[in-house]
């Protein structure tokens, strides 16, 4: 019996080893090291470094105005992006599912941006905002488009939102569509027989039965929006100045450009992790309670 148990354990270890080794080397150890370095003043190069306790964390939260601004900017973006992306994705899913024709056509169009690299598609948008829109705004009726889309932080915030909406709704739309397809037909029919208007259908049948999809999609958008980097990098580079700098940019700037404060950057990275962790956990535990079975 004992040898059989040992054999099971051995075979478990052998099967799991390749994946576990990769996981250990590129996820677990970097995470542990990062947590460790966040308590030091290491610059990433020197052999020696000092242990500084929690002073990195205190400095990041209390004294670092650039970091604080980037957190606030990112938080503002997260709120707008989560609401808008989910609203538009849900709207698209409802509209497409209510069509009988051209479903596949619309699904393809709205999902396509998700296939492209964020960097590459955002460069296309840079062209649109720097060349096409100025050309459009020379027509009388479209004069209102004459804004500094990429040069003024207040406007650029909305430019970022427009581009992220374009690239972000596809996957969410697919998840909502799958959820809508999963609503039992007899419930919809019963509601129609009872004389439900489209709005009532949405409010009392569709939405309550796709709460699980809402949970997933809001989690995905919350999680993704806090980590936004590529899009802002390609669109504004965080500028003008630090006007559109997001958290991830601030961390990278600290670690690599000029400052080389590796330990301090690690502390900021841990703070980012805690922010995302706490917020998504709250979101999931709140929303899980509202899910109903069909």
């Amino acid at each position, binding site marked *: 019996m004992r040898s059989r148990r040992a054999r099971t354990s051995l075979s478990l270890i052998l*099967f799991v080893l390749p994946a576990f080794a990769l996981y250990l080397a590129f996820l677990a150890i970097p995470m542990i090291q990062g947590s460790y370095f966040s308590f030091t003043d290491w610059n990433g190069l020197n052999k020696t470094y000092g242990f500084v306790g929690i002073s990195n964390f205190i400095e990041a939260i209390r004294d670092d105005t650039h970091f604080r601004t980037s957190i606030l900017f990112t938080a503002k973006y997260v709120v707008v992006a989560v609401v808008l992306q989910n609203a538009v994705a849900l709207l698209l899913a409802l509209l497409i599912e209510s069509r009988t024709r051209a479903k596949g056509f619309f699904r393809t169009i709205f999902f*396509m941006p998700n296939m492209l690299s964020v960097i590459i598609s955002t460069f296309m948008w840079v062209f649109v905002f720097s*060349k096409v829109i100025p050309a459009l705004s020379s027509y009388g009726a479209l004069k209102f488009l004459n804004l500094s889309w990429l040069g003024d932080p207040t406007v650029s915030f909305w430019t970022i939102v427009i581009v992220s909406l374009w690239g972000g709704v596809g996957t969410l739309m697919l998840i909502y569509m799958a959820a809508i397809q999963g609503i039992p037909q007899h419930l919809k029919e019963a509601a129609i027989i009872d004389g439900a208007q489209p709005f009532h259908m949405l409010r009392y049948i569709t939405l309550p039965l796709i709460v699980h999809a809402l949970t997933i999609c809001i989690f995905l958008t919350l999680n993704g929006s806090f980590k936004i980097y590529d899009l802002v990098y390609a669109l504004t580079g965080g500028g003008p100045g630090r006007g559109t700098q997001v958290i991830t940019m601030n961390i990278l700037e600290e670690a690599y450009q000029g400052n080389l404060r590796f330990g301090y950057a690690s502390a900021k990275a841990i703070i980012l992790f805690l922010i995302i962790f706490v917020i998504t956990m709250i979101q999931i535990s709140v929303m899980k309670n509202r899910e109903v079975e069909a």
Partner: protein
Amino acid sequence: MSRRLYSVLAWLVLGVLAVYFLFPIYMALINSFKSQGEIYKSVLKLPSSLNFDNYTEAFTKANLLKSGLNTVIVTVTGIVLIVFCSSLAGYKLSRTRGRLSGAIFMLFVSSMLVPFQTIMVTLTKMARDLGLQGSPLGLGIVCAGLGVNMAVFLYHGFVKGIPRELDESASIDGAGEWRAYFTVIFPLLLPITFTIIVLNLLWLWNDFLLPVLLLNDYRAYTLVLSINMFFGKYSRDWTLILASLVMSSVPIIVIFAIFQRWIIQGITEGAVKG
């Protein structure tokens, strides 16, 4: 609100949003065929002729052939490693009861919450220490390390749906555990394997930040990095840039066109189960 009005409204909203979604791609496409002078004169008109000069020039100047090959190396290395390692681990963890198995599985799953941005600084250092910095192959290996947790989780869930009797019948046939795995079990995992390939293909092919941190020589650059460098270098010359953007998007759009049904299914399943 009458049904008719509702239907008109629905088409209208879909139409407007479709224009918004196609607009940048359409604009990039039509302007990629124009000469510098033509773009300057009119951005909105269709090009006067289908001129591929921008494409041939951008193809060599942006180093698209070499970086396309590098991207293939990264993507294939990453996917092969992820599928091979995670299917083994996910299968075994799902079949073995006990504290060790449960603990290992929890380690994989909880790490899915760690954002890449939190470990990127130390991960770069680790890659440098292991000599994996600077080559597409090394990047593929590092990517595999970041991708196994999610894949193990998906395999683990999928294996639960496969009857245990199948493993047992295979071992009664006298096949060793490993042979039984590759001849009997792995073929059954193909549906979820396809989902995993799709999810990782999109990530690896389009990834930006990790390649930036790990590849510092332009000869090792992936497509996205070459385009990024090209954009910085020729930022005044939109004709070349747009041609390079269109060209680098073509492979993934062709793949999408061919495998659309499976890709959409894979994305939905991956998201819902993940």
